[in-house]
């Protein structure tokens, strides 16, 4: 095997493989290069004619302006929206992970009659275009006093997160041997104590995958943020960024810095936990 590998290493094809990979990687990084380079440029340096050039001095002015805004221009900073996203994403992620874990537990280990029919019906909920539920959603949220509130957005993300979190946990628990559950049943343990003492302690990797998945999709959500909030001060960061980028008087370096701020939390998660991110990604395709 070693001989084989080393023989392979000196094949001219190997040079081509590395060459193609490096070129592809460079192309994939172009948008990020442009974003980072522009965000760190000083205001004097951000002419569009030199947009591809590397910054000659490093300045944080664009970030500051994107974060706090500019009273003179009547431009709101992204800071309150960033915090909104935190206040929405963190509880929604925790609640939907917990809910998914319980659902997945019951569906994997306490299969009841009709579960085979209910499960695909549940899963369909994660594929629907949300346009098909937005009209009644707004009406109902208004009726129950959740429209235009952070609580409303948390609620919406929890509800529409049920299918994916249930799916990931069900597949996760299905891989845990039934014998473990059966043995404790013999010992007289009930459904809740089996969950608390046996399944839950084994669930940490499952929770990490689900929470990364939910955090990323809730943080990155745009549609619900747009529809459920009405005032700028309650909008999540994606909606605020879109408004910022859509107003013609906001300098483009500020837009780029704002985009970097909006991307930062999920990028950091991705950098440090990419292994779990991959797992969530593959689990999202039903069979897991």
């Amino acid at each position, binding site marked *: 095997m070693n001989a084989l590998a080393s023989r392979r290493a000196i094949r001219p094809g190997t040079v081509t493989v590395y060459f193609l990979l490096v070129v592809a990687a460079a192309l994939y990084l172009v948008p990020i290069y442009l974003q980072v380079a522009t965000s760190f440029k000083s205001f004097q340096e951000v002419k569009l004619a030199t947009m591809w050039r590397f910054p000659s001095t490093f300045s944080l002015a664009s970030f500051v302006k994107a974060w706090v805004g500019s009273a003179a221009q009547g431009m709101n900073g992204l800071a309150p929206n960033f915090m909104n996203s935190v206040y929405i994403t963190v509880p929604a992620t925790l609640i939907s992970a917990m809910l998914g874990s319980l659902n997945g537990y019951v569906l994997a280990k306490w299969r009841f009659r009709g579960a085979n029919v209910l499960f695909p019906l549940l899963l369909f909920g994660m594929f629907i275009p949300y346009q098909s539920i937005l009209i009644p959603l707004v009406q109902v949220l208004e009726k129950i006093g959740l429209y235009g509130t952070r609580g409303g957005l948390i609620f919406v993300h929890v509800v529409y997160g*049920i299918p994916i979190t249930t799916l990931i946990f069900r597949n996760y628990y299905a891989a845990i041997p039934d014998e473990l559950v059966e043995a404790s049943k013999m010992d007289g343990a009930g459904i809740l104590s089996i969950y608390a003492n046996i399944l839950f302690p084994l669930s940490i990797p499952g929770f990490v995958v689900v929470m990364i998945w939910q955090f990323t999709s809730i943080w990155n959500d*745009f549609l619900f943020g747009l529809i459920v909030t009405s005032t700028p001060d309650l909008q999540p960061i994606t909606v605020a960024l879109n408004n910022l980028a859509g107003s013609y008087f906001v300098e483009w370096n500020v837009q780029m810095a704002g985009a970097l701020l909006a991307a930062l939390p999920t990028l950091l998660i991705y950098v440090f936990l990419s292994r779990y991110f991959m797992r969530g990604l593959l689990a999202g395709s039903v069979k897991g």
Partner: protein
Amino acid sequence: MKAVARDRAISVALVAPSLILIAVFVYGFIGFTGFSSLTKWDSLEPNFKFVGLHNYQRLFSIVPTDRFLCDLRNMVTFTVLFLAGSIVLGFALAILLDRQVKGEGIFRNIFLFPMAISYVVTGVLWRWILGPGSTQSGGALGINLLFDKLGLGFLKWGWFTDPTSVYIHPDSHFGVFLSHIGLGGLATPYVGISLAMISVAIAATWQMSGYTMAMYLAALRGIPTEMREAARVDGASEMQVYMRVIVPMIRPITLSALIVLGHISLKIFDLVVSMTGPGPAFATDVPALYMWETTFRGNNFAQGAAIAVLLLLLVAVLIIPYLVSSTRSEVRR
């Protein structure tokens, strides 16, 4: 025995809230949207006067606006380009990474990280990269600027601001021929390619091709080395190993990637809103965007509901067979 019955009851109580929420917020709401699409609800005040399929007929006619027909054309253009791009690029990257390269993890992460960021961020970035620039912006920008610098100025074009739709003109020779053989319906601006959608597809492919790469790479790793070695021993060239052994084995992956990406492309909204909006002559408009504008900007709820129902039907046609077959194979297993 009593304990078993109690556990059964608790198990139902645990899942009941979720099932009820999904029943109401997914199926109940879809029902309400379907009902609304058959009514005359065209202002803030609900008006449930039954109008039959009127709202649907309006979508498919050219008056008062041909916007939905443009949307369908754009959706098809986008879907074809985006799926082809993601599948081909994802597969190519997976093959390269599968060749025991050093630094595989770094490369893999570079191709995959765009998936972690929001479509809105992607839209903002690519709007500046593919923005053609104008006299207001002081000349070319983005890629067009690079073309200028590299002496390739002739490649400059309007990217997502180009309203051109490539189609068979009904008065052209081929158009006349088509109408002779009863296919005149194909020679219209709505059966064509919206060039502006190419830009949106590039941005979406940048974001999502890492997904297909990850799926293909996982599949390639699952193919036993012995199978490839056996083919090589039989005298198969490297190309033949891929075509005869690997491509057939990853066909199911291709199918599920097509379905997952396909339903994303039908629903595409965030990226279009943040990158281009409806565009000139609806060159980059999509059904999801039309639905949002007509419902929540124009207060024409019934019209928006009709678009939503059509969008749902398109997604359902794609997803339901996939769900049925994958849950069924699980039961068998």
